[in-house]
């Protein structure tokens, strides 16, 4: 009985080590990209962001948004959809459930 538990513990440890070694390269690539792409905006970047937002908002009354190509407009639409999906994702986290509230 004691030997069985001992063997089990050894096997489980070996399995965990194998899992860690197996997942290291994908995690490394993920970290390599996430470190640049997924970080929150630095405080110095926020004024630039607000400038760009103002430019976009100003393009509405001047009508310069009509100068966009269809491809650009589609890309903008996709990016805004992605940002809006972040809202739903965090709403799921906030309401402690995947489908429905209570």
């Amino acid at each position, binding site marked *: 009985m004691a030997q069985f538990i001992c063997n089990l513990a050894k096997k489980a440890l070996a399995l965990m080590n194998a899992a860690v070694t197996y997942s290291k390269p994908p995690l490394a690539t993920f970290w390599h990209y996430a470190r640049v792409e997924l970080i929150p*905006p630095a405080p110095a970047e926020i004024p630039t*962001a607000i400038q760009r937002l103002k430019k976009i908002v100003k393009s509405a009354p001047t009508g310069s948004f009509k100068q966009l190509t269809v491809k650009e407009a589609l890309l903008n639409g996709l990016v805004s959809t992605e940002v809006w999906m972040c809202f739903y994702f965090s709403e799921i986290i906030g309401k402690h459930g995947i489908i429905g*509230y209570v």
Partner: protein
Amino acid sequence: MVPPVQVSPLIKLGRYSALVLGMAYGAKRYSYLKPRAEEERRAAAEEKQRQEERKRIERELAEARDDSILK
């Protein structure tokens, strides 16, 4: 490997503010809806109990009516 893309700060700001806003909205609405849902569940359970009671009485009355010596 493709070098990582430099994401525009506006998009980063948008994503993270959407995250924070979403969590706040979800938590607020959950705390608003939770007591109402419990109330509704309690009312539904009570209603169900009353239905059961009525059915039981109905059943017993029907049995009593059927009961006769001419069976």
